[in-house]
């Protein structure tokens, strides 16, 4: 990587910083994407007749 980009000293700190940002950004997008799909499936009744309200309440307990 160091040949490709002019990084020099402290390259490690730099890459970790950008890496952490990327991980958090991707995570924040994935959470609502999966949640949306989950809701659609549950509302359409594809989860073996489980109680939807109970599902939602369970969801709300998670901090994210």
């Amino acid at each position, binding site marked *: 990587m160091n040949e490709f980009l002019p990084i020099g000293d402290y390259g490690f700190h730099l890459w970790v910083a950008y890496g952490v940002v990327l991980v958090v950004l991707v995570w924040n997008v994935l959470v609502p994407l999966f949640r*949306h799909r989950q809701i*659609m499936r549950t509302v359409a009744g594809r989860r073996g007749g489980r109680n939807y309200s109970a599902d939602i309440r369970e969801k709300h307990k998670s*901090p994210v």
Partner: protein
Amino acid sequence: MYRALNQWTSPPGFYRHSGRALPWLWLSFVAVFAAGLAGGLIPASPDLGQGTAYRIIYIHLPAVWMAVFAYMVMAGSALIHLVRRDTLADIWAEASAPVGASFAVLALLTGSLWGKPMWGAWWVWDARLTSVLILFFLFFGYMALRSAMDDRRLAARASAVLVLVGVVHVPLIHFSVIWWSTLHQGSTVSPLDAPTIHPGMLIPLLIMALAFLLYYLLVCLMRTRCAILEREHRSHWVMELARRKTA
């Protein structure tokens, strides 16, 4: 005019219209973020004293700005909710909290990764660092309060009050480097004065800030849409939508 506004502020209307805005928001975020990364990482001019570590500024500063911005938007939404009992405003505030908390965490982590080589410490109890940590706790407290209360309306009102009380903390973040002698450097870019950095650095910085702003809108929109579906899961339009989507 009122009808046009109403189409956006009613939850089903908001869901429908925001669905059309999403792909454009995605596209513009990816483009601006790529430009910001290129502008921040590629130019070949290591700082004299800092080597390459200064490049952390392109993610560190926008992260702090967006954490504060997300908090202010939350406060505005909370106020609208308290005054007008507007559901959508509450949903938006709820959606903003995790995004704002993420930005605060990123600001602290990238700052730490910058502080270690520059100051020789991952963390110091400095006024600026501590005030951003408190901002993170405000976001976290808001989320904890919401998830702890079963009554949704009560949770919305109580958390709105919490956010509004916390607003007094926001100016403290800005003035912390002025009022106390801190290890953290003073403001590089401030709305009140001319920026103190070279335009070659300022431009990628502003591009990255725009990318983070688009990202905030994108994620909040996605979260808001999910929350609307959850709240209206019994209504006809949601069932119809789910039937079509999963067919």
